């Protein structure tokens, strides 16, 4: 039995977050009432003419720059012809032989180090409408709100070798597109969809095996599961002496399997030809340079800076930089005086837990990074304990006000005053002679118990580190 290696390439479609559609002034907005963001252009009425949205070009070039592509000086659009009821013109305007961006790459962070994944091309195209199948048994209904929404398709080289690499690749792309503000990448709204090409080959073999293509996977999880399913399916086929056929398959996420849609023998013939209704796009070098200059700090650069400048662990830096608003919140808190590690711990720990419970994003946190900074400083100066900090945080989520005021109102101030604590330690020791003996006999649990008693006596306000030191000091005297 030989060992196999997977070869994976991904085409990612991302909806651009422009205000209007690609060829008309209808709103590009998710969730509108059915067929209300439509006009004769985007519903393909005869005699209408498309006019390209300048932001679509700008956003695509921005993505191209962020993914290290060369930008075509002269580019054009083409018609891709096929019949489907969600496509009213019976052709999709896309780009065939001269995409806006080509020959780029993206570095993805893997456990084994950084791996460079080639980007074959990025082109612009229009989205199709949406078919509603459930309304009737005999008909499908068509909503054209999405028809004409601008997309970029990002095509990778077949450089990915496992589902894990594919996952990191997809997450890296999403993060970059969000950073440069060209797509909101909301999977639940269908802003990103993927086609995944998978083949396998015996390890060490140079030639690629026969690939299958999985169309229209609409979640990262689906893509990863689909890839794993395909690798297993193809491996089983080859090991049983069979052959993989080149075909298009559809991933059924509910059933957790892919099913054949059509074999490539009757390959699609899209009869691409230059779109006669749209003129070529010329992009001057200066324009590209300007866009490149204006790119924000990208996630991998930020990540490296958090490690080298702020001394954060790789893991923290990775999590904080994945989503731009998280990084911005973190940086604002640090700028306001929180320690990097302190701010990082709270954001990655309790804040992200509460966000998950409330099912909101960090964008919608009701308090400011400055308030988080104040809270972190209160803890780090010893004014409140870590557990009091948790209470402050919960209050911040409910009614954001100055952390100092919350501390006062809830009486959370920590007792660090040695005199007062000394008294409590003495009291506890006197009441628990047995524990002292246990401690002397080497039982570690005894000191924990006495700690607990002091905390109880102080109503949770004692500074635990001070209590611990005082207890040890007292015990060693006896």
């Amino acid at each position, binding site marked *: 039995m030989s060992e196999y290696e997977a070869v994976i390439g991904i085409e990612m479609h991302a909806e651009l977050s*422009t*205000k*209007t559609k690609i060829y*008309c*002034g*209808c*709103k590009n907005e998710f969730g509108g*009432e*059915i*067929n*209300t*963001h*439509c*006009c*004769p252009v985007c*519903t393909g009425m005869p005699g209408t003419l498309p*006019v*390209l*949205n*300048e*932001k679509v*070009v700008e956003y695509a070039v921005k993505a191209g720059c962020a993914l290290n592509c060369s930008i075509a000086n*002269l580019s*054009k659009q083409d018609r891709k*012809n096929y*019949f*489907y*009821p969600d496509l009213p013109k019976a052709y999709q305007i896309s780009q065939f032989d001269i995409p806006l961006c080509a020959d780029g790459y993206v570095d993805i962070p893997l456990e084994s180090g950084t791996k460079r994944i080639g980007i074959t091309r990025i082109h612009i195209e229009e989205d199709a409408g949406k*078919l*509603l*199948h459930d*309304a*009737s*048994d*005999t*008909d*499908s*209904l*068509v*909503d*054209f709100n999405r028809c004409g929404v601008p997309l970029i398709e990002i095509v990778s080289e077949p450089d990915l070798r496992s589902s894990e690499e594919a996952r990191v690749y997809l997450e890296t792309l999403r993060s970059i597109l969000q950073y440069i503000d060209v797509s909101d990448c909301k999977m639940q709204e269908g802003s990103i969809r993927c086609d995944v090409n998978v083949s396998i080959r015996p390890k060490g073999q140079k030639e690629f095996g026969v690939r299958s293509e999985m169309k229209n996977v609409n979640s990262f999880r689906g893509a990863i599961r689909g890839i794993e399913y395909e690798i297993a399916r193809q491996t089983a086929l080859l090991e049983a002496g069979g052959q993989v056929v080149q075909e298009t398959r*559809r991933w059924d996420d509910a059933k957790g399997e892919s099913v054949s*849609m059509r074999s490539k023998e009757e390959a699609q*013939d899209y*009869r691409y030809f*230059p*779109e*006669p209704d*749209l*003129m*070529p*796009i*010329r992009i001057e070098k200066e324009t590209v340079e300007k866009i490149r200059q204006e790119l924000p700090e990208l996630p991998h650069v930020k990540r490296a800076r958090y490690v080298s400048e702020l001394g954060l662990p790789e893991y923290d830096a990775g999590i904080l930089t994945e989503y731009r608003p998280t990084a911005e919140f973190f940086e604002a808190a640090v700028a306001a005086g929180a320690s990097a590690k302190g701010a990082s711990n709270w954001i990655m720990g309790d804040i992200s837990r509460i966000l998950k419970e409330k099912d909101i994003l960090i964008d919608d946190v009701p308090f400011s990074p400055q308030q988080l900074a104040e809270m972190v400083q209160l803890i780090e100066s010893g004014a409140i304990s870590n557990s009091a900090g948790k209470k402050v945080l919960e209050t911040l989520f409910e009614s954001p006000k100055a952390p100092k005021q919350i501390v006062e109102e809830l009486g959370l101030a920590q007792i660090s005053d040695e005199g007062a604590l000394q008294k409590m330690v003495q009291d506890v020791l006197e009441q628990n002679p047995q524990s002292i003996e246990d401690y002397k006999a080497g039982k570690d649990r005894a000191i924990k118990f006495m700690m607990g008693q002091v905390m109880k006596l102080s109503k949770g306000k004692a500074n635990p580190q001070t209590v611990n030191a005082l207890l040890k000091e007292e015990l060693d005297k006896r």
Partner: protein
Amino acid sequence: MKITEKEVDYVARLARLHVQESQMQRLTQDMGNIIAFADKLGELDTEQVEPAAHSIVVENVLRADEVQPSYAREDIIANAPHKQAGCFSVPKIVE
């Protein structure tokens, strides 16, 4: 390129056209003539000419990303042969 009935049949299928057997011979000949005419262009020496998708030199016809009013739903679907619940209605699509 020699056009045979096979090519005509293929193109017809892609375009969802039903071609009657009786029309086949004429269509094959017509299409052959059209292709032969286009092939004639290939005889020109275009070595020094840049490829062009358009015959006039106009570039960057763009519009600003500004929202314009859309049409009312009833106007959009007014001419639909079949409509239902504010939508165009088509025979059920099974994947």
